[in-house]
């Protein structure tokens, strides 16, 4: 009896004292360096990434190990397989991974209340605040629910950061330009004529028939090769399927515009004169790439990242003149190619912490760390001494390493460089860190160094040092108060979603029909197309979307 009594007194005293110990510690002031208070105990966080795949989501490479060393966090990355998203299952079962990047399914999880609000953390999240700067309000969800659930993806560049890559869509082979003495090709007519002249002069290339202009309309690629170039040719910026008046901010489905119709009339003409590849609307992406690699396609209207493989292959087999130069071709001189317009950071989806996370504080600490300068340098540049060295206080990537990163398709998987930037908070291209160096590995020098011999020749002939010099400058355009229009989240169950889907399906069907029709029939086919669009209430879609954009601008200005 006595023993138990003494024991229980001792126990109580111990318990009470340990409780007291917990009380007095928060007198510490805000730390100077983040590493001082960083909890580095090992923890594994599960992370579902809608864009992950078997090659990029193993977390076993050198950069991943370094991340674990500096934060204690090991990520177990899951991703969709077989095209099926696991998000509906998560919502049904009520169990989520700790972190999630749900992209298109994000609104579903928000409605199912699966994400925790990050508002209470944002005050102390120094790195996140610094990275997003004035864009911080853009992390909010919507006007009805201005909570911040995610820390958004895609590089964040403050307004005024120079844009280095125009991302233009009209490409033509260097060989064609050289052969004609580097003419000034401004309008579609001049562009088309240049292609036709070369085609007639050289009916075969590398033993195969020359193709003038080839498109790849396989699946979603029609948006890039058939849909977007029309907007680009009439001076519309990269807003996807929308034409937005920069003064009134009113939105319209861009295919309704009469000038867009003229672009497709031009394509129709290209088809009638035999310049357009007859297989454009039936070929698969692999066939298209093979054609480009064979060097016989003179022109394409495509985005550089789409055919990067073909460019790399052509470089390897030393046929640089068969790669492409990008030109700001427009319908006629009164339009300005808007590829260099600064659309600002678009907000949109990002990484969120779910309600199933047992340690949200730690998860938030990790996300905040990913936004820190040291993390940005680690994920972009790699490990010092391995992927880059410090020379005179500046980060330098050796030529050999750069070559490897450009030409070795497994570079990312093996080293981890560039794998963990997206979808986490990321500094954009051209943004400088406190030491005056760029966060991302791209510099004007690296971009020009990576031009192949044909590109350098072409640029010199036009008096430019970089591709962007050939394009109307960023300063000539107004910035957008709502980011890139296509990044606007459209509520799942709205009329707009349904109308837009029907409209896009109709466009994907009718536009090729119009292009392949006989020139005399073009107007008829096009008018039928527009009539169908009007029937599915495309004008209402325009008004609805305008309202969404206005809401977004309002939400972000708070």
């Amino acid at each position: 009896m006595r023993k138990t009594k003494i024991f229980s007194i001792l126990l109580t005293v111990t318990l009470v004292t340990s409780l007291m110990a917990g009380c007095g510690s928060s007198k510490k002031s805000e730390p100077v360096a983040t590493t001082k208070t960083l909890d580095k105990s090992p923890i594994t966080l599960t992370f579902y990434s809608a864009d992950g795949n078997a090659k990029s989501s193993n977390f076993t490479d050198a950069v991943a190990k370094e991340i674990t060393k500096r934060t204690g966090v090991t990520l177990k990355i899951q991703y969709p397989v077989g095209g099926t998203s696991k998000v509906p299952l998560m919502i049904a079962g009520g169990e989520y991974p700790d972190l999630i990047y749900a992209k298109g399914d994000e609104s579903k999880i928000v409605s199912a209340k699966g994400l925790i609000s990050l508002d209470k953390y944002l005050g102390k999240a120094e790195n996140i605040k610094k990275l997003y700067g004035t864009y911080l309000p853009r992390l909010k969800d919507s006007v009805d629910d201005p909570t911040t659930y995610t820390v958004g993806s895609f590089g964040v560049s403050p307004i005024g950061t120079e844009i280095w890559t125009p991302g233009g869509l009209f490409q033509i082979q260097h060989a064609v330009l050289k052969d004609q003495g580097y003419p000034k090709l401004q309008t579609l007519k001049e562009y088309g004529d240049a292609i036709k002249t070369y085609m007639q002069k050289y009916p075969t290339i590398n033993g195969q028939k020359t193709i003038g202009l080839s498109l790849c309309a396989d699946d979603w690629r029609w948006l890039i090769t058939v849909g977007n170039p029309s907007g680009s040719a009439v001076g519309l910026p990269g807003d996807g399927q929308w034409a937005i008046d920069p003064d009134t901010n009113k939105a319209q489905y861009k295919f309704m515009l009469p000038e867009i119709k003229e672009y497709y009339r031009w394509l129709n003409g290209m088809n009638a004169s035999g310049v357009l590849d007859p297989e454009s609307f039936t070929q698969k992406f692999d066939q298209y790439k093979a054609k480009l690699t064979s060097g016989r396609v003179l022109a394409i209207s495509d985005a550089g990242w789409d055919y990067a493989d073909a460019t790399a292959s052509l470089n390897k087999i030393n046929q640089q003149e068969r790669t492409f130069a990008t030109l700001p071709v427009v319908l006629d001189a009164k339009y300005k190619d808007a590829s260099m317009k600064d659309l600002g950071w678009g907000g949109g989806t990002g990484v969120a912490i779910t309600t199933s996370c047992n340690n949200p504080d730690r998860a938030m600490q990790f996300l905040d760390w990913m936004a820190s300068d040291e993390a940005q340098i680690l994920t972009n540049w790699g490990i010092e001494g391995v992927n880059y060295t410090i020379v005179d206080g500046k980060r330098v990537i050796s030529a050999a390493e750069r070559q490897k990163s450009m030409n070795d398709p497994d570079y990312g998987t093996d080293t981890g460089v560039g794998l963990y930037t997206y979808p986490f908070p990321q500094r954009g291209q051209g943004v400088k860190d406190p030491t005056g160096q760029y966060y991302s590995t791209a510099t004007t020098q690296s971009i020009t160094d990576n031009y192949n011999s044909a590109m350098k020749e072409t640029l010199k002939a036009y008096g430019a040092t970089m591709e962007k010099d050939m394009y109307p400058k960023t300063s000539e355009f107004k910035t957008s108060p709502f980011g890139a229009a296509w990044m606007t989240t459209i509520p799942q169950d709205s009329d707009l979603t349904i109308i837009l889907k029907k409209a896009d399906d109709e466009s994907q069907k009718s536009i090729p029909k119009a292009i392949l029709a006989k020139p005399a029939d073009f107007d008829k086919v096009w008018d039928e197309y527009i009539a169908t669009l009007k029937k599915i209430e495309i004008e209402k879609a325009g008004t609805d979307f305008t309202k969404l954009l206005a809401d977004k601008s309002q939400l972000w200005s708070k």
Partner: protein
Amino acid sequence: MKKIRKKIAVFDVVVMVIMVYIVIVTLYPFINVVALSFNDSNDTVKGGIYLWPRVFTLGNYKEIFSNPNLPLVRAGFNSVLRTVVGTFFTVISCCMLAYTLSRRDYVLRKFVSMVFVVTMYVGGGMIPSYLLMKNLHLLGSFWVYILPGLIGYFNVIVIRSFMDSLPPSLQESARLDGANDFVIFSKIVLPLCIPVIATVALWTAVGQWNSWFDTYLYGKDLLSMTNLQYELKKILDSTQATSGQTQTALARNGSLIINPVSSDSIKMAITIIVTVPILLVYPFVQKYFITGMTLGAVKG
């Protein structure tokens, strides 16, 4: 006499031609996959490889076997395990059910058969099935590969039809000799059903070997639960599946590498690795398979 001979000859020729055509159409893609798997991956991009590798290399296979992120041994082990265990339990269960339903003196025979037929056409869908597995605590367990698929009613029908064609006198005489139901089932009926059992076993085995979707849906600790087809699917999936608009945004904002892509040659190589085991097993069960398919031809 001469006329009949000619007719048969023409018919034979036509059948031959059709068969040869079918053989080419089914065999060619496979040969193409083999050729691509032995071709150097950088060369494959150029296209134009049909029956023979242009630049022969064993590098693709080497890369797959040495890839630290591809748990081939574990996946192979799991695939074999679930095929063997799954087939075994499925066959036993289906046979037992078929025997019960083949007995004409079973009171609920018609009713039960009808209920089962309904299950062939009506299913819960992805989310209800997921919730069911969750509530049965099968998520993340190896048995999720075996238990849900135990009874495929189509298999039961096939076995039952076969059993129905066995002469009832066999069972009657066994009963007269004092055998109980279980003895009749195991010692008399089952041995006679070997052809149809082999058929069902083959179907089940192929189904188990090829399934990856249940791994994806119900697997928790995927490292220990993975199987070969799932690994293959993951690799086949790493194409530029990210939508064009994401790519545009990334290119604009300077991402160097996003979604590295598996080369076609690697995909073909792992396809071959996953297909070869089944190819090896098939010749041994082939004779049973053909016999089993000609069910009606067995005369009591």
